[in-house]
């Protein structure tokens, strides 16, 4: 599908337009913004510590005099990148496992579903925290933890879709034409069933951001003095009475990301429904 078609389809959903605009703004601000921001997120300056938001420091400064706005941007870069991978990996792994499991069926499918049921029984935060906590707080470990836990949601969705698609005529036609199973699943079935998984991926971004920042908040994620939204909120708790802005702004940033992806998710949902 080329760009023009995509843009035309997008016109059908105001949610999607709004969400895409928010996302574009977010990425622009977070990645390009720093070039315009006069402050270094790590620069310590006790003379301006705990300064409330004003003309110079739009979001104020923290207890070490670091500019909160700059840190929110820097944290955004890291959090968004981690979240992107922590959604993409389970999406890829889970969708593949779900598709294969549904396509092959039989014992393989039964085993995979039992594994899904068991992993599903553990609350998300419990497993992720246990894995990251045991392995140590590094970005790689976060990728591993999220992948190990979140793949089941995608697997379930894609499996459901493939179970239906498996019986449809275009699959039978492909078999008759002699295409191998792998090719059928990858090139014929998957593109058609991937849409609900993509819609879920958008809400998963929100869950992931909340998860990553929770880890940071608990001290199990990104370590100081790196800027990370959850970490900033945690650090700001000690000064919540005197300088609430330290914790306030990172939280607002997270909410903004959440709203953005909710809009995109709803928009994708609209598009899916509008399909003939």
């Amino acid at each position: 599908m080329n760009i023009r078609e995509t843009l035309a389809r997008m016109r059908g959903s105001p949610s999607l337009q709004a969400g895409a605009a928010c996302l574009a703004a977010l990425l622009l601000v977070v990645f390009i913004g720093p070039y315009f921001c006069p402050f270094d997120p790590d620069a310590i300056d006790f003379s301006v510590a705990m300064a409330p938001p004003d003309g110079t420091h739009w979001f104020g400064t923290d207890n070490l005099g670091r500019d909160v706005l700059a840190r929110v941007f820097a944290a955004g870069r890291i959090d968004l990148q981690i979240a992107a991978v922590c959604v993409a990996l389970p999406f890829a792994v889970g969708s593949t496992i779900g598709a294969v499991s549904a396509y092959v069926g039989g014992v393989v499918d039964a085993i995979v579903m039992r594994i899904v049921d068991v992993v599903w029984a553990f609350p998300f935060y419990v497993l992720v925290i246990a894995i990251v906590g045991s392995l140590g707080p590094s970005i790689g470990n976060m990728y591993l933890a999220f992948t190990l836990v979140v793949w089941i949601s995608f697997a379930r969705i894609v499996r459901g879709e493939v179970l239906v698609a498996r019986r449809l005529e275009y699959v039978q036609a492909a078999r008759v034409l002699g295409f191998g199973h792998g090719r059928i699943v990858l090139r014929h079935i998957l593109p058609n069933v991937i849409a609900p998984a993509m819609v879920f991926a958008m809400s998963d971004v929100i869950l992931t951001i909340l998860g990553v920042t929770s880890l940071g908040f608990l001290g199990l994620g990104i370590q100081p003095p790196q800027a990370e939204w959850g970490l900033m909120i945690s650090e700001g708790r000690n000064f919540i009475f005197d300088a609430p802005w330290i914790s306030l702004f990172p939280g607002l940033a997270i909410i903004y990301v959440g709203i953005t992806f909710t809009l995109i998710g709803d928009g994708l949902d609209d598009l899916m429904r509008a399909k003939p």
Partner: protein
Amino acid sequence: MEVLRFSLIRLLQLVPVLIGITIVSFLLLRVLPGDPATLILGNRGSAEDIARLKAQLGLDAPLWRQYLSFLADILHGGFGRSIAYRQPVGALILDRMWATLALVGLSTVIALAITVPLATIAALNKDRPADLLIKAFFVVAMSMPSFWLATLLVLLVSLHWQIFPVSGYGSGFFDRLHHLLLPAIVIALATAALTTRTLRSSIIAVTRADFIDTARAKGLCGRSVLLRHILPNSLISMISVFGVHTSWIIGGTVVIESVFGIPGLGYLLVSSISARDYPMVQGLTVTFAILVVAINALTDIAYAIADPRVQLSS
């Protein structure tokens, strides 16, 4: 008694899942890089210390035998001894479980209290300003990190207005309730964001049902139709919805207990991880999973009792 038989069958179906849970918890620490002994002792142990601890923990035996002894430990009511607390893990868990259960229970009640009225208003005003407002409210609520909301609420309500305590668990029933209220509200808000959407759809679907026509043709006023026909049929689906979200509510306690200093299982998990208390972590993950599974089974049974259409005898 059909209910009893149904319950027993349902509980028996749990056994494979329970076994699976123990396997996952067991593997959690065994297949991760580095063996537990090295992880536990870290830099503090010499090679001899590590070797001794390995033997002590039975880590030199083949994997399957380690699993069986792990299973045996569980069935004897323990998960070993906590490294940090120097007490049996099982006893500690039992001790701290009640705070978490109280928090979960209170959160569920508050979530219900938020969900039912808001979903009803949203459904009855579908696509009108009230509906859109409620939707927008929950979009924000769902995107909000619970620990952030908790921090701000504490600032406002506990520090400025001084209505609620900042942290801790209190003593005595009403004092405990007082302490748990704020944390429960935070968890409930996040949960309500999900359940309200589902209940709203359910109410809208029921409102369009044929039997509502019949009810209105009897001359019943709108309020009677709502209370006696629409809500009872929608609320039954709520039982299973809350069952599904149990995992979410229980998971929410992990972070919130740490924020508010409530001595429950979540707080224990976080502190155990920081302290590298692996027997504790293992025991806790199994406990959490069992809690989720047990509550799910209970909601299934509750649903079967509530909906007259479900045949209790197979």
